[in-house]
């Protein structure tokens, strides 16, 4: 067994940097907006790729709409319901309206979402919070003419044909400035967002999973949340042979998983106790990483949990391993991690209540 000091001594600097990097990355992608109720809520900025995807979808829809107009007017003309002059007059009008007002209409109507954004799960919001006002929608979409349609036209028509060197340079400068604008600011704003005071954010979606500290996690209940709990028992068949007997009533709810053979009464028998000193080894970041590990599902989930459990046991110097080399047996892994998670959370939450947030193990 390697000593805890040795493992931290040589891994510390890069690990700490990595941790800081992860925290900064998250801060880079999220923004806080203040609600009128005085509570700040956070939003995640949309990825440039997602935005590109949304705009491409919208352009496809615009193309389809224009095709639809042509077909409809053509049909009306051929069937003799409409004379050619009306077809031309309406055609001009419809093309103009669709090109200039497609984005505007949907963003006003669907509160900052166009069909493309809806599919990509994005929405436009006001940078200062509050209702997305109509003038903001006007501003960010009226500029599309120079920002999107003209560069597109230039690119499609082969930029720089017959304009001379300066003309070509100017064209590419134009295309470059507008196209790459979102890459040159932290908020990933295009010019339209800049002048409208808006952000494009990911429409947030997160499911409420079961509380990992709940007592009854091991007894397979028929509660509505039970579906999300099965993953904790997913022990590969080979491993479960060495563990305690599989109980027939244990149900695996995770869709693709088939093996869940930890008996319901077994974990309650196993008790691990942790001292405050042991718990103070870790901070909030590690607690929440452990939460991810515990919620993990998939074929390798058990292996990861076993590795993490033994790593923790070594680091805090917990003498609980029942295997010959002192490590945890497969049957011990889940209860050890669960109880450690719970104890650590209790400890950190208690400290936090007293105004002492331990952010990470380096804190």
């Amino acid at each position, binding site marked *: 067994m390697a000593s805890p000091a040795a493992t931290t001594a040589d891994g510390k600097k890069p690990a700490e940097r990595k941790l800081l990097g992860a925290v900064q990355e998250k801060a880079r992608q999220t923004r806080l907006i203040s609600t009128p109720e005085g509570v700040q809520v956070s939003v995640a900025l949309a990825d440039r790729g997602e935005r590109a995807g949304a705009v491409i979808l919208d352009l496809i829809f615009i193309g389809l709409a224009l095709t639809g107009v042509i077909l409809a007017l053509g049909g009306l003309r051929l069937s003799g319901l409409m004379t050619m002059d009306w077809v*031309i007059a309406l055609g001009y009008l419809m093309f103009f309206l669709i090109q200039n007002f497609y984005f505007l209409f949907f963003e006003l109507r669907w509160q900052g979402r166009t069909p493309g954004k809806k599919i990509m799960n994005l929405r436009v919001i006001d940078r200062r919070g509050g209702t997305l006002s109509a003038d903001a929608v*006007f501003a960010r979409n009226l500029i599309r003419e120079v920002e999107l349609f003209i560069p597109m036209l230039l690119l499609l028509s082969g930029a720089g044909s017959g304009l001379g060197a300066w003309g070509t340079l100017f064209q590419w400068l134009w295309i470059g400035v507008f196209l790459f604008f979102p890459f040159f600011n932290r908020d990933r704003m295009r010019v339209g967002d800049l002048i409208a005071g808006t952000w494009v954010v990911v429409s947030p979606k997160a499911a409420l999973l079961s509380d990992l500290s709940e007592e009854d996690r091991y007894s397979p209940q028929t509660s509505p949340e039970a579906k999300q709990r099965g993953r904790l028992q997913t022990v590969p068949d080979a491993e479960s042979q060495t563990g305690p007997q599989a109980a027939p009533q244990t149900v695996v709810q995770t869709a693709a998983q088939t093996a869940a053979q930890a008996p319901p009464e077994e974990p309650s028998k196993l008790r691990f106790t942790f001292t405050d000193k042991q718990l103070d080894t870790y901070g909030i970041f590690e607690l929440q990483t452990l939460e991810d590990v515990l919620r993990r599902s998939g074929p390798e989930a058990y292996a990861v949990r076993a590795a993490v459990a033994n790593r923790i046991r070594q680091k805090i110097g917990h003498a609980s391993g029942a295997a010959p080399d002192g490590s945890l047996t497969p049957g011990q892994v889940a209860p050890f991690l669960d109880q450690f998670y719970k104890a650590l959370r209790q400890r950190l939450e208690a400290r936090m209540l007293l105004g002492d947030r331990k952010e990470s193990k380096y804190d």
Partner: protein
Amino acid sequence: MSEMILKSAVFRQEREKTWQELDAIVTQIEKKGVRSLTPEQCHRLPLLYRATLSSLSVARSISLDRNVLDYLETLSTRAYFCVHGARGSVLKYLRAFLFVEFPEAVRAAKWHLLVAIVLLLGGLLAGHWLVVANVDWYHSIVPEGMAGGRTPEASAEDLRAVLYAPPEDGEAMLHVFASYLFTHNAGIGILCFGLGFALGIPVFLLIFYNGLMIGAMTGLHATKGLLPDFVGWLFVHGTTELLAVVLCAAAGLMLGSAVALPGSYSRLENLRRQGRLAAKVVVGAVLMFLVAALLEGFARQLVTDMTTRYLIGTTAAVLWAAYFILAGRGRPHG
């Protein structure tokens, strides 16, 4: 193991029902819109929203369960969009826009408007003077396609015929003409706004050149003794159309000046303020282009009496001036 019961877990158990109820309502709004809510749900939404926001505050200070934190965070954000994202009816907004916001935005842009008008008039006078002094200038200013047969080589009779031409093909093509004019002009107006982002320089050039072309035409007609007739022909729709043109130019200049001269705000904040005002001016101007196109497409072609043409144009100009100066003053915002 009673000592292992966590405060944060108890907190969650007590509040979970509220969150889930809000979640259901918010999901329904996201999928089917606000209108699908029952009166009971409408009543519950703000209560649940505030309760969940308070849960979020509490959770941030007592809980380290990241799933709960993330869930509350996203649920609050989603509910926030539902509660504060909804806007009033379109009709109501349209009224507020036409009677308060548009004239207000135009008044806020008055200095830019003045610059645009001066540029346009400067171009107009320069074009007029150049062509009157030497008629050959006309060809270098007005492109062949725009001239439509109105060249120095044409006789006064030909020019007069264009000005008082009865509608081609009867009245059938007027709506085509109007629709073309509207989309063409409004498109240029929107372009003018966007070009403003390049420090307004393209806008200066565009508006000056526009003036130059009109000036060249007045100059040409002046040399043939048709100046009053041409101005009357232009006046019917010109007062409305040129006003819309200078408004779009003013919006572009507003944007350009916000990029170049941030003033007392940060550049970002200034752009946001000016950009929104300018956008309102452009949307209003697009509506004016519609009016202008109707005047140009129908009124000008149907009314061939010079006095009536002046009357229509002047009335329009006076009405626009009164509208921009008076409408929406002293009203509360929103």
